[in-house]
């Protein structure tokens, strides 16, 4: 089982996904697609990491995660629009004010959806801890209710997501077209990943959460109120989904009530590829999916979704628990 071939195969897959497209795509296009793929990957990471952390720690399959993502996008949309109405920072020539309004919208979305996550965990999830079947039923129900609430509050139609003016357009670096927002998304995604990584690695709370991913019963036996941690992790996971939603909406410049359902499929694939419960697994899985999707979408557009499924099948056949084991 642990032959060197199998041990190195995941690394080979990563390298193949990263380098093989160079044979078929011109270097300039390759760089543009790579940046776009990395940005998509970072956005997927935000959604998948929350889903993965919730499954790893609480052993809960939260299929309402996509609805929390959509709520994040809508709250981000409303916050941005309202703040922009009062201040005009979104249309300002100052990149600093553009970043502030964008971050404010994301923080508000994260906080409010984190709160929504706490309510969901207490009312919906807590009665079904330990039963995956009931979790699927009840979280699908919660997803439908949350989506319908969006239709009631914001209406059923698509909305155009406002984008800070300095985030639009592209830079021309040595004749290579580099879109601005994907680069910003990569930086924000990386900062969030590193922050989460450091919290999980260096703080006591993070250590307890990692211990809980491995053995939640022993965490209780060691005197920690596991339910408080369950609620906290659920809130953080929901907030990450919301930030992902807000950033994704800015990426595709539109929002609609069913957008979460589309992204949750990617998030599931990413979380499984990376290894459920693993933060590093989520980021690597997300980048693999983002890159392969973008390269294939350029070469054979119709096969774009298929390639992520193929990636899932190949990786699971080599490592059934994903690229990174739980908790790393």
């Amino acid at each position, binding site marked *: 089982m642990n032959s060197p071939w199998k041990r190195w195969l995941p690394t080979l897959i990563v390298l193949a996904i990263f380098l093989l497209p160079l044979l078929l795509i011109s270097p300039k296009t390759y760089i543009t697609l790579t940046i776009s793929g990395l940005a998509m990957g970072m956005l997927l990471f935000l959604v998948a990491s929350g889903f993965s952390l919730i499954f790893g720690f609480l052993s809960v399959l939260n299929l309402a995660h996509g609805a929390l993502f959509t709520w994040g996008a809508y709250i981000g949309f409303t916050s941005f629009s309202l703040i922009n109405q009062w201040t005009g920072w979104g249309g300002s020539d100052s990149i600093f004010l553009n970043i502030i309004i964008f971050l404010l919208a994301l923080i508000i979305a994260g906080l409010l959806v984190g709160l929504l996550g706490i309510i969901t965990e207490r009312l919906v999830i807590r009665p079904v801890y330990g039963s995956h079947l009931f979790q699927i039923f009840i979280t699908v129900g919660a997803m439908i209710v949350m989506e319908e609430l969006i239709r009631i509050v914001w209406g059923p139609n698509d909305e155009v997501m406002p984008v800070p003016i300095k985030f639009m357009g592209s830079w021309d670096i040595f004749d290579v077209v580099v879109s601005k927002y994907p680069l910003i998304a990569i930086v924000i995604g990386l900062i969030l990943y590193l922050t989460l990584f450091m919290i999980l690695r260096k703080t006591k709370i993070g*250590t307890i959460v990692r*211990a809980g991913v491995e053995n939640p019963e*022993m965490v*209780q036996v060691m*005197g920690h109120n596991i339910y408080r941690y369950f609620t906290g992790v659920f809130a953080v996971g929901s907030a990450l989904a919301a930030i992902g939603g807000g950033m994704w909406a800015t990426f595709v410049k539109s929002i609609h009530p069913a957008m979460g359902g589309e992204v949750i499929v990617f998030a599931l694939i990413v979380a499984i590829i990376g290894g459920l419960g693993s933060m590093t697994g989520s980021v690597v899985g997300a980048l693999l999916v983002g890159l392969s999707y973008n390269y294939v979408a350029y070469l054979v557009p119709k096969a774009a979704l298929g390639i992520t499924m193929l990636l899932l099948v190949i990786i699971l056949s080599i490592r059934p628990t994903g690229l990174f084991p*739980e908790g790393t």
Partner: protein
Amino acid sequence: MEVDPVVEPILKVEGIHTFIGKHHILQGVSFEVHPGKVTVLLGRNGAGKSTTLRSIMGLLPPSQGTIHLKNRTIQGLKPYEISRLGIGFVPEDRGIYNLLTVEENFRVAMLQEDGKSREMMETVFEIFPDLKKFWKTTAGNLSGGQKQMLAIARPLVNRNELLLIDEPSKGLAPIIIDHLIDSINKLKEITVMILVEQNFYMASSLGSDFYLFDDGRTVYHGQMEELVQNEELKKKYLGISGTN
């Protein structure tokens, strides 16, 4: 049973019944644990010893009966509340966090990081020097014996009054078991212990009082020297003869 009537028991379990799903596993378990002693729970596989420890910890709450820690009733409390009252638990599978380092395993176990806990860490290092040596090692890479030592040492950092240890000798080589017996003997000065053990050599080396379990009930108790001599009891309830 020859128990000093003046000394109040640290733990008193009275007539507990516990179900796992529909299965009625404990059907009347009663025993007392006294300060300064190692109380050993003995019996064949499936007699209810491990379930008793899990019931005390609140992991399998009993449906009937009472459990008192000193003067406080603890049945019905959550496992983390029971743990905070001063009971440590070492499960049969050791419950080590294999992906965390030895240091991180202790960090999770330590409820308060202060001078007292640091002092206790020094005592733990004296008893289990390997843990200091492998402080930064991932626990999953430790040997079986080292993992068991880590499992036993972790709850000690909170100066727990009572330590429940489930089958510490499981899966260990005889030489390692001797080493473990020495270490656990040193723990007698720090904490009171309840030991569930199938290995009669280990049980008799460490135990002062014993309780025999059969079909989810406590059926006999006494002092360990008595059991060592009583071939009939050993054969009837443990299926063994001699000290093996």
